[in-house]
């Protein structure tokens, strides 16, 4: 039974987001989910990149690392590897995760780092005032694409499944109850859990109404352990909300733990012995 309430996770700082921003809904869902799980704030680390949504750690009363643009995943990996007792949640936007930080996403996925990655996807750069992002639609007009976006959008969910993420889901900021539940399942999942949280930018790319009309729930008979079907669902148009893919696989933390358990204990003096070159010294093990 949880003893903590969502408000216990609020910091004294108020979010700096525009009125109506989807990120409020995501933050509320995160507070509620953390309360549902009764997460110890002192053992929870929220790691973010740079962007509107990446300000999130400042609004939570947990440990936090507000890193550089695009770098929350490798920082989160270091946090988790160095202290596996911590719950590590990485957050950020679509520009942070899929443009400048895209090089890290497949590796976090294939390594199955034991981190939850919550991307607030608004298909636009908000903080820099409305330029096209990697998830912006073809022909979308923006200050940097005055003739319409000449590029096709990236599909983060398909990418996550292809790269080996072991938990892939989609939620929406305007459906906080379901999103709360998704976050809880993602955090409780062992391994890399990715949530694409549709989070409209009401200032530069107000998709709120169209997205509300477009979303459907993942069909109840969808088998999330079937990777091919999950991939099919991710590639299909439209927005299915829910868990697309879930896989049981040893995590990076577990694999490194196994390496540690197998290692023959040693110390620095033994290591120095490996370089021994004293006159007449016995020939030791190779250094």
């Amino acid at each position, binding site marked *: 039974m949880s003893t903590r309430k969502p408000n216990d996770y609020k910091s004294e700082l108020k979010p700096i987001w525009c009125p109506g921003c989807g990120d409020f809904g995501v933050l509320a869902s995160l507070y509620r989910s953390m309360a549902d799980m009764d997460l110890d704030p002192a053992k929870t680390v929220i*790691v973010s990149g740079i962007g509107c949504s990446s300000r999130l750690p400042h609004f939570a009363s947990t440990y936090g690392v507000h890193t550089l643009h695009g770098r929350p995943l490798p920082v989160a990996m270091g946090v988790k590897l160095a202290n596996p007792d911590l719950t590590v949640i990485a957050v950020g936007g679509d520009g942070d995760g899929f443009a400048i930080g895209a090089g890290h996403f497949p*590796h976090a996925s294939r390594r199955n780092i034991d981190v939850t990655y919550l991307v607030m996807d608004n298909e636009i750069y908000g903080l820099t005032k409305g330029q096209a992002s990697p998830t912006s639609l073809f022909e979308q007009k923006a200050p940097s694409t005055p003739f319409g976006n000449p590029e096709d959008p990236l599909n983060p969910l398909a990418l996550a499944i292809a790269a080996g993420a072991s938990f892939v889901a989609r939620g929406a900021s305007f459906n906080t109850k379901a999103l709360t539940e998704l976050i809880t399942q993602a955090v409780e999942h062992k391994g890399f859990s990715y949530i694409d949280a549709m989070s409209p930018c009401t200032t530069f790319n107000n998709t709120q109404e169209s997205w509300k009309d477009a979303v459907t729930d993942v069909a109840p008979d969808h088998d999330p352990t079937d990777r091919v079907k999950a991939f099919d669902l991710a590639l299909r148009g439209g927005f299915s909300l829910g868990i697309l893919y879930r896989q049981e696989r040893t995590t990076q933390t577990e694999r490194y733990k196994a390496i540690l358990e197998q290692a023959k204990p040693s110390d620095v003096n033994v290591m120095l012995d490996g370089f021994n*070159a004293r*006159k007449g010294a016995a020939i030791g093990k190779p250094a």
Partner: protein
Amino acid sequence: MASIPAANGPARPRCPESSRGLPIRHPGDARPGCNLYGGTLSARNSVVVRLAGESGEGVISCGDILTQAAARGGYYTQTFRTFPAEIKGGPCMYQFRLSDEPIWSHGQDVDLLVCFNQEAWDLNWDSLGPEGVILYDSVEVTIPDEYLDRARPVRMDELAKEIGGSTRAKNMVAAGAITAVIDFDTTPIEELVLRRYAHKEGVADANIAALHAGAEESADLKGRYPLVPPVEVEEDRMLISGNQAIAVGAVAAGVNYFAGYPITPASDILEWLSVRLPQVGGLTIQCEDEIASLASVVGASYTGAKAMTATSGPGISLMNELIGYAGTAEIPVVIVDAQRGGPSTGLPTKTEQSDLNQALYGSHGEAPRVVIAPVSVEDCFYSIVDAFNYAEEFQVPVLLLTDQGLATRLEVIHRPDPEKLNIVQRKTSAGIAREDYKRYEYTESGVSPMGLPGEPNGMYVATGIEHDEYGHPGYTPEIHLGMQTKRLGKLEPIRETSRVATHGEAQPEDIAFIGFGSTFGPVREAVDRLAEQGLSVGAFYPRVLGPFPASRVETFVANAKRIIVPEVNYTGQLARLIKAETNINELESVAKCDGLPFTAEAIIDLAAQEVAA
């Protein structure tokens, strides 16, 4: 002062290409005669051996086994290698210097040149010293007539085939021939061969037979080039490279997280720690790039780990943004830069000291960091301990600059005693009440206690955005000035307290050498030899270049007629730093940009030539 003789007789004319620095030897240089067959040369306390051949012919393993055997035989050694940047094929070279006394440089004039093939001769003949002799493969190599009196053919290929059925043991024939000429006991070599091939029956025997056959081949030259035998000492010594000294030193300092990306010439550290860190409860991970490497190191250190990465110039270029982040968020990290020739991909397998500017000033804004440059292989061990100590004490990124030469050369060093090291741990928020805790609190030292996840009262958000004492974003003039003063000001005491490597006069009157990193060895040797000429000479090598010990440098040069600043780069980065940080206006910047380390002889020639000019 006008009478300083050059190291090797009269000064040679300068080659136009070397106008930025040093004389280089070129064909046609007069050299005194040397006859290998005409009696015994005087006993040496130092000998320089260079092996050359095609990559894959066993040149490197021959050099390695001789160096190891010599170290175990009680000699001091230092190696010098050049590698082709390609994996297979290409010319390769392995040079080692042996002495009964500590060695500070790899030596310039080769005493014994061993040529495995014709190209080896063509590429290396001009390294031969005035009394240098040559061993060469009797079939593959043709030596010009004027060198025949100092050259001895060795049936390397032929004997190897006779003994082992292939040319594989050619290098052991060569090793045997070398042992005879320098009068070196083969026992330690045999022991090493037995160990190396313990699992392969017959191979060890064939190699030892090849070794003896080689020694027999040049038996008539035995003792012709005698080396003073080492003194018996009861002392622990090690044969180790700069990269290895850094890796084992990091373990002594308590490293428990290493992340890296393969890059020449730093990969040894990643590989060595991959095996050893788990043995002491730590982790080594290979990341997708250098950015992820340092990012994960930042994350690990945030939780309290002692974390480091190691790379070379291109990797540092990628890490620069995170160096600024770690400085601003005040997270301790250690970054090793084994410098190689730049810019861009540059010369991956050659040496250069051209990342000093990048280490000192890299990353936008004015980001705090400490920059350390060890001066020898032994110093690599102590400097990585310093690096962790500075990182922990000042909560700052620390860059440790070595270079390809220092990182990859093997050297006999005195075994360090880990018990005697002073290991610093960071100040944490433990024991501070939650309502009183401010992560970035202004303190007298500028260092504020760091909250570590798990500690209930230390919660904060680490951030690279400008922030107030709580870590909350804030951009007022007071906050920015206050925090820059805190972050940069906390490092100021290091200027007066950092370790310095010195040699010779503390305040020389004739020549003051100032340098950094691996040029210390040859300069130290040159200082001794110049002092023998009656000159007042000294060397001052700051081990910490940022923050720079400006007033201590000024004191050192106060009485000096000449200030010489040797460095291996094009623009004279240290010379510029000295001019920027001190009141010194007149100095001789000797920037050498050829991808090769300095030799002591080059430093001496330089001192002599300037006087002649």
